[in-house]
């Protein structure tokens, strides 16, 4: 019977809409970074699992005994963590909506394929709407599934009452699911509103920038997870507080109301959470209807010709860089191609924007903690936290670019490079290095140096900027060491098959690069002798990496367009030559 229902035209149409949302849209199509549904859902649920795991200690009875905590109230103690989970679920759900921005609403390809068929517009409208509703529910459940199961158990585990657990579970689930649905429908509302209001050309041009702005906002929301909860606990009155404008605060208030532990100042916001969610649904529905009518049903009448972009100054900048930086035809063409891809292709720009945003969040958290705790400043040398800020930003920028280079764009069009580029060119790593440096060096020279010079004097700023630059150069050498692709022109990213390991290495690398280095730098800066001991280590490390790069076998330098490991026999044959 189930099979019969699924074969009905309307059900088939819903399935088509879901396939379109999951597997592609107008612009990206088959070259979009496709993690596969299973991997995607798994990765989305991962943060909830990890955070729940790390909170076991906090709520464990043994922990409380060791710390001598009596009268421990899990409900009240859970508020900061509840805020974090709510913020995380909102950010992750909204991120999915942004990632699938182009495929949420039906496009011209749908129109071209389905309009000639005997399907009413309202049928397709309804099918897509149901698909979106289904997707909203699935995303909300998946992102929060692990924390829904694990977190209430962790929090109430020390209590023997089942009712205690059920009450907490109900409040936790309600807050999380409503927060996820709210954030997803807000993105949908923004998308639909822009499509309804703006001319199509302006919508396409502005789409990327709107998304980048939303990503930045989302990351800022996530970064409030550490600072806001203590403020909420001490809040006396909400009317003057800017906290009332933060969406996670509304859902925390709802959660706390259901638990009976809400701060009186926040009580009014709990009802607002429900109203905001309902309003988001209504606006999203209206925007969807208007955009459907305006864009989809009139697809055939909308002019297709869109300007590619660029400006008056762009060719001038390219020519200048051709003379100063990119000296060969391959480097010049590769640089132009890379920059235009970043400027016009959404996936790559979003990957870079995501990393940059994470870096900004991490750095701002560090700065906030460092400014509130000046105890670690020794002999007028800034704390390791203050020193680590440019390292943090540099780390995320370098990795953001390196990861973005792996994301393919229109991969079938790479035949152009296959036919024109010398396969034995050894310039891929060089090109990647130069592009990363072009992003990094201006920031170091124009931001890092002046800021530290202003607060600590020019000598200190010079030494610190030199150390940061050397570390960044070393990191760049490491990340591009065996890079032998033209950015964006290779097939499947290699990290798809080992993404978890890559994340672990990324986190460990961040710890070494930012935390340990800044601690070592602080140690070195306390004493001149120590500084002269520390300073030569960096160029020595760079030299060692450079020498290793020189000794790479030919196979490791040959350009590749497929992300495959050469068979052992082929490697052996090549070594024999």
């Amino acid at each position, binding site marked *: 019977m189930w099979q019969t229902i699924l074969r009905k035209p309307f059900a088939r149409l819903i399935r088509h809409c879901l396939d379109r949302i999951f597997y592609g849209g107008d*612009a990206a199509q088959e070259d979009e970074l496709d993690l596969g549904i299973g991997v995607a859902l798994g990765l989305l649920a991962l943060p909830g699992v990890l955070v729940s795991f790390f909170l076991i200690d906090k709520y464990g009875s043994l922990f409380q005994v060791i710390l001598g905590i009596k009268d421990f109230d899990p409900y009240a103690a859970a508020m900061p963590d509840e805020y974090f989970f709510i913020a995380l679920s909102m950010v992750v759900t909204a991120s999915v909506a942004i990632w699938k921005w182009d495929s949420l609403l039906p496009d011209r390809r749908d129109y071209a394929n389905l309009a000639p068929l005997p399907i009413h517009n309202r049928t397709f409208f309804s099918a897509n709407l149901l698909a979106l509703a289904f997707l909203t529910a699935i995303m909300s459940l998946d992102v929060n599934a692990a924390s829904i199961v694990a977190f209430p158990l962790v929090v109430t585990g020390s209590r023997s009452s089942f009712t205690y657990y059920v009450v907490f579970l109900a409040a936790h689930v309600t807050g999380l699911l409503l927060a996820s649905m709210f954030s997803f429908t807000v993105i949908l509302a923004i998308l639909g509103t822009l499509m309804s209001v703006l001319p199509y050309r302006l919508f396409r041009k502005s789409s990327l920038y709107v998304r980048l702005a939303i990503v930045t906002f989302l990351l800022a929301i996530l970064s409030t997870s550490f600072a806001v909860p203590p403020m909420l606990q001490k809040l006396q009155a909400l009317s003057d507080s800017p906290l009332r404008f933060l969406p996670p605060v509304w859902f925390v208030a709802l959660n706390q109301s259901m638990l009976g532990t809400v701060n009186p100042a926040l009580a009014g916001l709990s009802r607002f959470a429900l109203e905001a969610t309902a309003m988001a649904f209504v606006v999203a529905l209206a925007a969807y209807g208007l955009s459907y009518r305006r864009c989809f049903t009139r697809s055939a009448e909308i002019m297709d010709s*869109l300007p*590619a*972009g*660029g400006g008056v100054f762009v060719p001038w900048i390219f020519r200048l860089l051709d003379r100063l930086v990119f000296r060969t035809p391959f480097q010049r*063409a590769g640089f132009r191609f890379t920059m235009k*891809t970043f400027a016009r292709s959404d996936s790559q720009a979003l990957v870079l924007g995501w990393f940059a945003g994470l870096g900004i969040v991490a750095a701002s958290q560090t700065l906030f903690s460092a400014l509130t705790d000046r105890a670690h400043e020794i002999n007028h040398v800034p704390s390791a936290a203050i020193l680590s800020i440019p390292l943090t930003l540099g780390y995320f920028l370098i990795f953001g670019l390196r990861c973005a280079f792996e994301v393919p764009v*229109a991969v*079938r069009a790479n*035949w152009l490079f296959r036919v024109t580029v010398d396969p034995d060119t050894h310039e891929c790593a060089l090109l990647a290095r130069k592009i990363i440096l072009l992003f990094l060096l201006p920031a170091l020279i124009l931001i890092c140096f002046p800021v530290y010079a202003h607060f600590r004097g020019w000598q200190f700023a010079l030494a610190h900027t030199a150390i940061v630059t050397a570390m960044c150069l070393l990191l760049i050498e490491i990340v591009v060491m065996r890079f032998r692709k033209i950015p964006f022109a290779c097939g499947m990213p290699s990290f798809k098959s080992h993404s978890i390991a890559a994340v672990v290495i990324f986190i460990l690398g961040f710890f070494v690069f930012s935390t340990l280095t800044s601690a070592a730098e602080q140690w070195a800066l306390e004493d001149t002798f120590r500084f002269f001991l520390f300073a030569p280590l960096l160029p020595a490390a760079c030299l060692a990496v450079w020498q290793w790069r020189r000794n790479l076998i030919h196979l490791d330098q040959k350009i590749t367009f497929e992300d495959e490991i050469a068979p052992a026999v082929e490697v052996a044959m090549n070594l024999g030559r």
Partner: protein
Amino acid sequence: MIALEARGLMKAYTSVPAVSDVSFSLNSGEVLGCLGPNGSGKSTTVRMLTGLLEPTRGQVLCGGKSIQKDLVGYRERLGYVPEETNLYPFLSGWEYLELVGTLRGMNPTPLAKKIDAMLELFSLFPHRHAAIGSYSKGMRQRILLIASFLHDPDLLIFDEPLSGLDVTSALIVKNLIRGLGEQGKAVFYCSHVLEVVEKVCSHVMILRNGRVLAYGSTSELQQASGQSSLEHAFVHLVEDRDAVQTARDIIDVMAAA
């Protein structure tokens, strides 16, 4: 002078070869047509000729030397139009051609002039700054054609170059191909459209099931098969089913309940 030569080309992906024992020679000033039904190995042959695919056996020679010995040098003299219009949709037509020219080491100023002139001649100048993603199929095909000529190659390999072109553009390209041959260029022309091959090509090679079924000048093929036109010769040599009867059978299936 022999510009391009294939000797015993074979390509096998599985135990059944896609192309087997394909040999031909193409002289400067000649236009060699390659015909065959779907799955006959035309595209595989083209990819081997361009060096995108390495043959399982056999060689491709340019000027008497294997192209594998100096693939870069060979491609510098080669202009190629692939069958599928896979282009970068976010680049404008002008930017794409500039990318091609820059990759080929052409100087920026003469390159820019050439691009403008070519776009004008192919009626693409008003659309030069529009994203390729918004181009029609014919416009993309014209971009591919321009990209293949930009560096004035000696050897051109076309795989269905008229696909998507309007009548005027197709006429221009047909005359262009003839003109290229008269200029001393060597042209390898792969197509399904028999009428064009008959008008444009001096020699024809017919493939079937990965093998060369016939090879020679168009008049030789017509005489050998005893047919009045290349189309009839092709059908006589290749087709193993009655097209008229097959069409009737399709109509019968359509009308069936």
